[in-house]
């Protein structure tokens, strides 16, 4: 790691005003320090935000829940309110990383973790995300874990988070505080597709701090499922994951949310696919149609084309699991 200076503010405004062009916030450190050891990140200053008062989980006035950015992934997954009302979120978190990492990793940091593309991690090779304009070796290289949806000429990386797939399906809102004040960002507008600017993973401005994630009241606790497919049974990133949430009345679907992980630069949702389920019987034919709509326009590369069929089957299975009722 390169030398850097260190500060540990205790107030949010103090943290934001300390932020300069070569600063990084650090929370759990599990992604940032990893990247610093590989020289992918080279900050001159670390602003340790773990002293900020952002570690509580509270019910909101409209029946939702507000999760502080510093709540650890483990504490969030095992919080009674989350287990009971948002089991989809609890399951997605527990499908990610390892128990040790989940004890360290924060809610805010999880949203901002970078891609696990091998070329991005290797600072001796070109990569448009790491050094814009140098090229994308993944396109013609090792691309087994890469995107099948929403990729661009410049970058075919995927966002690796499990938690974010559930947050996308649950229509979470990200609370942000920055030099220009506070704002709220809908989850679907938080991460972005690579387009011509693969170096930008999300829509945060420089120096902006995530303070909280808010969940609306609807938690789909009765009918949800998180299905993660990967190369080993645990402690591996998703090849494909699906967060499926249904509201079912008398066997008929009243509303549906589906988000895909491991397939794109952001958790993937498709309004048409979700709308196609409404008013339909919660049965395989409807799930099949939704899967087809979600994967419309999917295209793979040399080593990852298998993910298209894998995703289709995963979507159908996750929807069927959700329809049967959330597993204990």
């Amino acid at each position, binding site marked *: 790691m390169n030398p850097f200076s260190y500060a540990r503010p205790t107030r949010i405004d103090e943290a934001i005003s300390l932020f300069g062009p070569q600063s990084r916030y650090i929370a759990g450190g599990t992604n940032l320090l990893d990247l610093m050891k590989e020289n992918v990140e080279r900050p001159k200053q670390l602003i340790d935000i773990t002293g900020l008062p952002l570690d509580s989980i509270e019910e909101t006035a409209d029946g939702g829940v507000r999760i502080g950015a510093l709540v650890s992934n483990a504490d969030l997954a095992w919080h*009674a309110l989350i287990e009971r009302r948002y089991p989809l979120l609890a399951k997605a978190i527990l499908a990610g990383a390892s*128990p040790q*990492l989940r004890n360290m990793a924060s809610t805010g940091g999880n949203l901002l973790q970078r891609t696990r593309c091998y070329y991005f991690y290797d600072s001796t090779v070109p990569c448009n995300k790491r050094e814009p304009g140098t090229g994308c070796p993944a396109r013609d290289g090792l691309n087994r874990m890469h995107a099948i949806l929403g990729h661009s000429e410049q970058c075919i990386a995927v966002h690796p988070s499990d938690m974010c797939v559930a947050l996308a399906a649950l229509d979470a809102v990200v609370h942000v505080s920055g030099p220009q004040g506070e704002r709220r960002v809908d989850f679907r507008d938080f991460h972005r597709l690579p387009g011509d600017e693969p170096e930008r993973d999300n829509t945060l401005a420089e120096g902006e701090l995530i303070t909280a994630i808010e969940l609306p009241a609807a938690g789909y606790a009765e009918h949800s499922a998180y299905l993660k497919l990967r190369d080993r049974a*645990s402690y591996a990133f998703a090849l494909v994951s699906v967060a499926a949430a249904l509201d079912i009345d008398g066997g008929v679907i009243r509303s549906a949310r589906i988000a895909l992980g491991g397939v794109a630069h952001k958790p993937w949702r498709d309004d048409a696919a979700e709308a196609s389920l409404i008013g339909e019987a919660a049965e395989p034919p409807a799930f099949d149609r939704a899967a087809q709509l979600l994967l419309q326009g999917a295209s793979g590369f040399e080593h990852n084309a298998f993910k298209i069929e894998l995703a289709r089957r995963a979507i159908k299975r996750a929807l069927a699991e959700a329809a049967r009722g959330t597993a204990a």
Partner: protein
Amino acid sequence: MTEASANADGIAICSITIKLNGEPRTLEVYPWTTLLDMLREQLDLTGTKKGCDHGQCGACTVLLNGKRINACLTLAIMHDGAELTTIEGLASEDGLHPMQTAFVTHDAFQCGYCTPGQICSAIGMVAEGRAQSADDIREQMSGNLCRCGAYPNILAAIEAAMPETRNRVGVFEAGASADGHDGVREVKP
């Protein structure tokens, strides 16, 4: 944390105080010193192993305020005031920790490199109170790899030592705060 002195580039070396295996210790660390390097390089506590240095193997697992973490992916400077327990701190005058004894009696290692991390992780898992079955243990110990493949005996050792370990460490209450200081029963390794 206080600034103790500065090096040639004007970057501060800081002084932190931690309770390490029950003893208060004041240490001078650079901002970039990981908790793992502090233990191994500065304090010569080499029981905690460096397998991958990237959070991928669990060999560096220690108990920070009673919770298991990877010492390779955190900075020492971030833990001023914390309580840290490593494999060296588990035994007492009465002998080995029950989890250590179980690893010996069940022959739960071959080369032993992953063992300190496995043992600390298993104790942390018991304190979390979420493992009820053998499958739960397998899943919840998946953050600790064993290149020798001693997994069946590791599982057997943990199953055997769970009740006694639970009596010793207590169990975290649900919804404990992120830093492990509030909302938890007192947890002793």
